[in-house]
């Protein structure tokens, strides 16, 4: 994303908006992660307590999801940079 066309006042406003969105995104990621790991790991409702097998699954699920998101984020940034370079070459 390129906000260099924005003037300083707009860039300052944009920073606040981005900061707020990052918090919202984090919260959304959190509840999404809970839902995903719960759905994948918990299938036995003969007890209300998490079994140790379920707990291990949830911990691995969380770990793996974070590493996955990080990797996707890194590739996403690279692809975005490539796309921007390609666009600048055109003009």
């Amino acid at each position, binding site marked *: 994303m390129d906000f260099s066309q924005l003037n300083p006042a707009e860039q300052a406003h944009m920073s606040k908006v981005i900061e707020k969105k990052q918090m919202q995104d984090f919260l959304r990621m959190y509840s999404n992660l809970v839902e995903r790991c719960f759905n994948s790991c*918990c299938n036995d409702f003969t007890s*209300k307590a998490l079994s140790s097998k379920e707990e291990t699954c949830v911990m691995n699920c969380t770990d793996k999801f974070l590493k996955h998101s990080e990797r996707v984020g890194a590739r996403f940034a690279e692809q975005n940079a490539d796309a921007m370079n390609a666009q600048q070459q055109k003009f």
Partner: protein
Amino acid sequence: MSFLGGGSKPGAAVNSDRMEMAVQELDMITDVFNRLVSSCHNKCVSPRYAEPDLNKGESVCIDRCVAKFFEVNKKVGEKLQSVGNAAGGGGAFGMQS
């Protein structure tokens, strides 16, 4: 499940930052609740809909499902917090009960 911890000092008028935090907390809880309703419906309620009432098995399943979902919520929150602390200050990760 006070996701956004940290008691604030009493102020005079409407503090828009604090207001925003409270709205975000409300959004968060609504989001979690909706996901909980949907997940436990998928886990416990048969989609045949042969009768209008929850049967005994479904009701018991729902109760356990909610309890387990809360446990998972807690575990995931603790994990995120420990990752956040390891990553540095971890200010943004102080949100599970």
